[in-house]
């Protein structure tokens, strides 16, 4: 069985208009789908085998984040089947739930438990996380005293500290300075070597090609192409160039 399987998945979002919310809610309960909505994903289907590393390409609004959100269990599809086998580490946003008035240490515990670590795991990984983040001297200070780079470092270190079966990465490698970014990529490559299934969203073509063998190209919620990374990125780049030229 594949690590991730999607079959004919459609996801719509309501167009937010607070006055309509009650009405659309009633419609939903009655089984009438909300008319005032737009489809972020339309009939998406693919499967990813264990240990595969797959990039998702597409312009803004193509549905990349929605796709990761569905796999991560943040939201539910309107229709279709999603099967995910194995523990998922979502790197959708670093330091989700961080609070500036809590210390690094306290934020670490809270974030680790949110990401699905057990008390035992969090205890075992604690030292490794602190060491990776290079924040040992600051870990008992409140987070508001950290620079934004330090906050991101702590968030990343927690998120990649365990060895998940599936890792979802959404455009988060702009972490810290050049050296720390290198360290992050190295950790992701290490997870890949250990057989972690990785779904990777990034606009940095070099990073994508270095890591992934396969890519999916999403455009306006549809799966345009699914194949070897070079081919798919060329097709996507070609379309983008064509659009830019026709708009000019």
């Amino acid at each position, binding site marked *: 069985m594949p690590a991730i399987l999607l079959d004919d998945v459609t996801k719509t979002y309501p167009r937010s208009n607070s006055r309509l919310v009650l009405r659309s809610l009633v419609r939903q309960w009655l089984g009438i789908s909300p008319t005032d909505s737009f489809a972020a994903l339309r009939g998406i289907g693919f499967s990813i085998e264990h240990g595969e590393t797959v990039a998702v390409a597409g312009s803004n609004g193509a549905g990349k984040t929605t796709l990761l959100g569905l796999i991560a269990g943040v939201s539910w599809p309107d229709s279709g089947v999603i099967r995910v086998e194995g523990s998922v580490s979502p790197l959708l946003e670093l330091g989700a739930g961080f609070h500036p008035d809590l210390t690094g240490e306290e934020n670490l515990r809270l974030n680790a438990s*949110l990401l699905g670590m057990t*008390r035992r795991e969090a205890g075992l990984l604690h030292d490794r996380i602190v060491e990776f983040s290079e924040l040992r001297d600051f870990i008992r200070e409140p987070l508001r005293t950290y620079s934004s780079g330090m906050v991101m470092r702590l968030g990343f270190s927690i998120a990649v500290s365990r060895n998940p079966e599936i890792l979802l990465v959404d455009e988060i490698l702009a972490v810290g300075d050049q050296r720390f970014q290198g360290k992050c990529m190295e950790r992701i490559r290490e997870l890949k070597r250990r057989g972690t299934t990785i779904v990777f969203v990034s606009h940095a073509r070099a990073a994508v090609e270095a890591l992934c063998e396969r890519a999916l190209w999403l455009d306006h919620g549809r799966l345009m192409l699914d194949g070897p990374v070079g081919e798919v990125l060329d097709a996507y780049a070609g379309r983008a160039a064509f659009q830019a030229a026709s708009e000019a």
Partner: protein
Amino acid sequence: MFQTDSDTARRAPGNRTKRQGWSGEWSFLLRNFVAKDFKLRYRNMSLGVFWSLANPLVMMSVLTFVFRKILSNDAIADFPLFVLSGLVPLNFFTVAWLNGSTSVFDNGGLIKKVGFPREIVPVSTVLGNTVHFGVQTGLLIVFTLGFGKGVHLSWLWLPVVMAFEIVFVCGLALLSSAIDVYIRDVKYVVESANLVMFWLVPVFYSFAIIPAQYREVYQLNPIAAVVLAFRHILLEAKAPPEVLLVKLALVSTAMLGIGLFVFGRLKRRFADYL
């Protein structure tokens, strides 16, 4: 492993997913959430948890002054203790319910980004408030002793009754916090309801003076039932009547069931509306 099945979707709209993607530990997460609430509230206060004593003490003094000195009503013995035994359960109810109701919306950023069990949010908010409930009940016990009432075995019922109230408020907060995501007016409804509760729960009048035809209605209000039970236990040193306990147990578990059910249905679209 979790799966989403369109067949189930066709059979029951709104019940289209079975998901166990989050592999963590409920108790660990709940503990961290409650600890976070608590630390944030008290870290920057020099008097810390003693603030939770101020509110019931002030209210008790004001009510005693109004009823004893202005209305010259001496019908109820040990009036300050009587009022306080009503204020403590009511206070927990109003504050925990209000905080719980807005908790999902307040944690919207988190819910949009991490697939953890959403039920944790309102439940931890309510449980965070039990700390005050405990401290205020301690105050109530000090007052009980101060009014010359001895320690009694019936006090063992106190934690039982408190547990029922906590379960009830958890259920109510699950319900209102889920609706609050879709309809933001919930907060104002809760605030108004809390104001009404101050008058409709027998805080500063006794259950005995309520005309017979309204008593049935009063007994449907679980907070009134908790106040009644508190007074049985502390003022009269008696175990609460069995009928009262059974009703309280039924109503609070039913409320929790309803809360979990509605929350479970509505949570699927939280991330889309927040």
